[in-house]
């Protein structure tokens, strides 16, 4: 007996019942495909919606919050910043190059569809250990795909992160974030008005990506998932580049009332969302859509996820000029329908109605679930096993070298040298910095962007995992001298139908929400990626935060590098916190214990100090203290500036390995020129941030008084060679 069609498409029997109830009849195949796509977890957020409501979304500088293609933040001087993050993990697990490439293409179109010029891309990535050939194949493919696409469209890839854990072996996490700029008064909304024309611009519609959202992104990957390769879309970055330039030209000329990208669920999603937002209906004619191959069924055309397509919404009198722009850029363009006063979306093919459904029922009235939640049974044991209880069996010098060579900490040059980080000419700080800095041309302003998320913390305590992701990204932005403004996020989790996953999800939201409220950085939108598991392997709860910050005078920006002759300070307090640390994993071989506590008042004070310190010019350098603790932070600043230091650890109560490698939160290492020492200490005291002077920069050696010495060059060799050495191992073809 064959499976009923709705189940094959990913709809449950109850959901099918709801469709019948809405339509007051059985849906036909095309309609069923439309509902399956729009009511998929990926498009409808049906398992996450009830929880996402708990996140703070409002603030004085938020122009557009969640619900649109991307969030919009006011940067002052009439400028707006559009930004968003999204996951493309499922397609990347099956076809890493195209999966990652089209992830970049999709997030860029999301930003473009708000009327902004995309100016920066960041890519947070998680893979299994590189000792495994398959993980090397995945990372090579994903990085080549991000570069292959991003490098061809004239948008610099300026940051991101790459981390490794066993839990991401079967299911890599591939997120992509895009940032764009627009004049604040030109931000556009994909909203139809009655009589408006719907014009499809860009590539032809083919059979690629059909079922992408419902089959790939909303289910776990099972054995034989390689057979789903046809569900992965194929990217054409050249077409994307033309689309970007043509759309921006149309927006600048005021030709468009709305612009929507075609991503997940293709035409169905673009048309129903624009209509629902404008409170109109829509009629589209499938015969008008340029197809890549003959004989496509209506349901295929309606749900195809062919890339590099945009839906422009315009008044009929604008069509002439729109056509001229498209022809100049060599882009196909076709009127495929119009917004109607009726409520429904009507789809025509060969003069017949092939589907007719209420727009809102597709876009806004999908099912929502409040799924059962319960903590995993082993959680308490994991927390109780504190790595700080274990004796240090490896000498401190050796420990530091091993941490610098651990792929989580080691230089990611192998990755980011494959990305064009310079195009656009506004990259003030690129990959390898705490936060990327993008200048806003024609002003003295720059935005700072950082993406962060610590998988171990999420695994051990998802509440803290969510909170730390916000705090660390805010700290990174502040280290550059920028004031944190708002976040986007990508919430990567396992199967939400499992109560442990749902529990971790809710905990993450609660932690993230609390940190966002305390730091004054609302959530402008983002993406939820569930079902990141296969067989008995689920990813760790992996919230990734993309923080946006603003520096009003980029001449005041601060870098992490040491220069000789400056005083070195650690800000914040170091506690015996090795739980979930890089030291615990890389040296002690355990991922356990309680992650560092987070005092959000202290975090706020530190951020204020870093921002004010940059503003007042008292900081020569600042670097966030996180993975690998104080020792790694000092070493990174030394390597960045090719300048050693001599320090003594302030706290004599802590065993040396704890003082060096504890990952206590709300800390940073700063360097201060001798003549600014007094001003700096006064400022730190005023902001009530604990600080300790550790020593001075200079020389070619890193000296930890009474403990050990390590030449900067020796550290650099280990730090730079770790990932290239692993990647040089033979990678068999997949």
């Amino acid at each position: 007996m064959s499976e009923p069609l709705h189940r094959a498409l990913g709809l449950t029997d109850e959901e099918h019942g709801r469709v019948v109830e809405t339509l007051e009849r059985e849906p036909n195949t095309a309609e069923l495909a439309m509902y399956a796509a729009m009511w998929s977890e990926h498009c409808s957020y049906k398992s996450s919606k009830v929880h996402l409501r708990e996140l703070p979304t409002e603030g004085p500088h938020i122009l557009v919050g969640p619900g649109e293609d991307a969030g919009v933040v006011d940067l002052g001087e009439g400028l707006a910043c559009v930004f968003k993050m999204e996951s493309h993990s499922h397609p990347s697990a099956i076809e890493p190059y195209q999966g990652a490439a089209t992830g970049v293409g999709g997030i860029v179109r999301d930003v473009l569809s708000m009327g902004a010029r995309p100016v920066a891309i960041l890519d947070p990535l998680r893979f299994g250990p590189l000792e495994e050939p398959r993980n090397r194949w995945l990372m090579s493919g994903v990085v080549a795909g991000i570069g292959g696409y991003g490098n061809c469209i004239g948008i610099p890839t300026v940051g991101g992160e790459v981390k490794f854990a066993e839990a991401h072996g079967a299911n890599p996490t591939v997120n992509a974030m895009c940032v764009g700029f627009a004049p604040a008064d030109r931000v556009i909304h994909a909203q139809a008005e009655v009589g408006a024309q719907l014009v499809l611009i860009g590539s032809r519609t083919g059979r690629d990506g059909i079922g992408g959202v419902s089959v790939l992104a909303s289910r776990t990957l099972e054995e034989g998932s390689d057979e789903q390769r046809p569900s992965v879309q194929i990217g054409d970055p050249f077409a994307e580049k033309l689309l970007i330039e043509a759309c921006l030209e149309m927006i600048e000329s005021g030709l468009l009332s709305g612009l929507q990208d075609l991503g997940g669920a293709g035409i169905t999603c673009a048309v129903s969302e624009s209509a629902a937002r404008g409170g109109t209906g829509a009629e589209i004619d499938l015969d008008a859509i340029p197809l890549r191959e003959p004989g496509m069924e209506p349901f295929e055309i309606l749900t195809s996820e062919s890339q590099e397509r945009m839906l422009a919404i315009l008044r009929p009198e604008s069509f002439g000029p729109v056509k001229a722009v498209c022809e100049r850029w060599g882009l196909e363009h076709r009127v495929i329908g119009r917004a109607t006063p009726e409520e429904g979306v009507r789809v025509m093919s060969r003069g017949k109605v092939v589907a007719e459904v209420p727009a809102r029922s597709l876009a806004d009235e999908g099912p929502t679930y409040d799924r059962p939640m319960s903590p995993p049974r082993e959680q308490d044991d994991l927390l109780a096993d504190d790595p700080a209880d274990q004796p240090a069996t490896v000498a401190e010098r050796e420990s530091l070298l091993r941490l610098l060579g651990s792929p989580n900490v080691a230089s990611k040059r192998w990755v980011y040298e494959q990305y064009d980080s310079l195009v656009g000419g506004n990259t003030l700080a690129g990959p390898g910095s705490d936060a990327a800095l993008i200048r806003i041309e024609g002003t003295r302003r720059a935005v700072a962007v950082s993406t962060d998320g610590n998988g171990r913390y999420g695994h051990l305590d998802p509440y803290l995992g969510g909170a730390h992701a916000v705090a660390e990204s805010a700290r990174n932005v502040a280290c550059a001298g920028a004031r944190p403004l708002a976040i986007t996020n990508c919430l990567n989790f396992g199967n939400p139908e499992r109560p442990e996953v749902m529990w971790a999800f809710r905990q993450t939201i609660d932690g993230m929400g609390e940190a966002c409220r305390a730091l004054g950085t609302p959530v402008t939108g983002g993406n939820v990626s569930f079902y990141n598991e296969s067989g008995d392997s689920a990813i760790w709860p992996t919230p990734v935060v993309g923080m946006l910050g603003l520096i009003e005078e980029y001449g005041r920006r601060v870098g992490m590098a040491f220069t000789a002759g400056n005083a070195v300070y650690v800000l914040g307090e170091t506690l015996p916190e090795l739980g979930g640390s890089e030291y615990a994993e890389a040296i002690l071989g355990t991922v356990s214990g309680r992650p560092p506590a987070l005092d959000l008042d202290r975090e706020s004070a530190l951020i204020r100090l870093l921002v004010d310190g940059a503003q007042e010019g008292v900081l020569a350098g600042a670097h966030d203290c996180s993975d690998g603790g104080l020792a790694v932070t000092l070493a990174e600043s030394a390597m960045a500036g090719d300048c050693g230091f001599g320090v003594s650890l302030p706290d004599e109560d802590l065993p040396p390995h704890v003082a060096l490698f504890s990952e206590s939160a709300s800390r940073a290492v700063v360097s201060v020129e001798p003549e600014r020492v007094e001003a700096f200490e006064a400022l730190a005291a005023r902001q009530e941030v604990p600080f300790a002077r550790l020593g001075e920069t200079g020389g070619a050696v890193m000296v930890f008084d009474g403990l050990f010495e390590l030449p900067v060059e020796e550290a650099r060799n280990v730090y730079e060679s770790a990932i290239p050495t692993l990647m040089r191992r033979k990678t068999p073809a997949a």
Partner: protein
Amino acid sequence: MKPRIGVITFPGSLDDRDARRAVRVMGGEPVALWHGDSDLQGADAVILPGGFSYGDYLRTGAIAHFARIMDTVREHAEHGGPVLGICNGFQILCEAGLLPGALVRNRSLSFVCRQVHVRVDSDRTPFTRDLRLGTVLDVPVKHGEGQFVADTETLARLEEQGQVVFRYCSPAGDLGDEWNPNGATDHIAGVANPRGNVVGLMPHPEHAVDPDTGPTGGRALFESLLASFVPAAS
């Protein structure tokens, strides 16, 4: 009057805005040129910028050299007008036969974006005429297909006639494989035509003029070019 420097936009050009900005920053007047036009709008010199013209799907630069404006560029070059091809622009000039040799995939097989050093090995071009031989410039590269190759005869001729303009080198100007980002033959980063007025190079001087974004080794090329239009004081 400021010298007018044309920058051609092909479909898929990426660094065209950056090249125009660099011209402006350095004191020239940038002129935006479109691949489908045939008019150089009175430009004194022409830049073919970096990017992936036509997606580089066939072969880098292979389609762009058929663009209508290329006939005018050829004419401009034949009359001795300065032409600079950067990265993809270099590839287009090679495909168009205006420069010798070809650019193939990097030896690493990967795209590479990093700061490099190049040594000036010819001062017989408008872009280097004010520079001392052996000057080392700090400039970035970013390309997947930047490995310069040519047959033995061509290479010998290039050396003999002083057509090798730039070579990858150490900060001190020494040659060695560790300083060569793409495996280019004889570390060649840029070449000129026999007359010296057409130059192509893989590094991006237009991304090295602003101290806020990094090293400024590109300024010297623009300074030299712009100075070449100032009538010599009599």
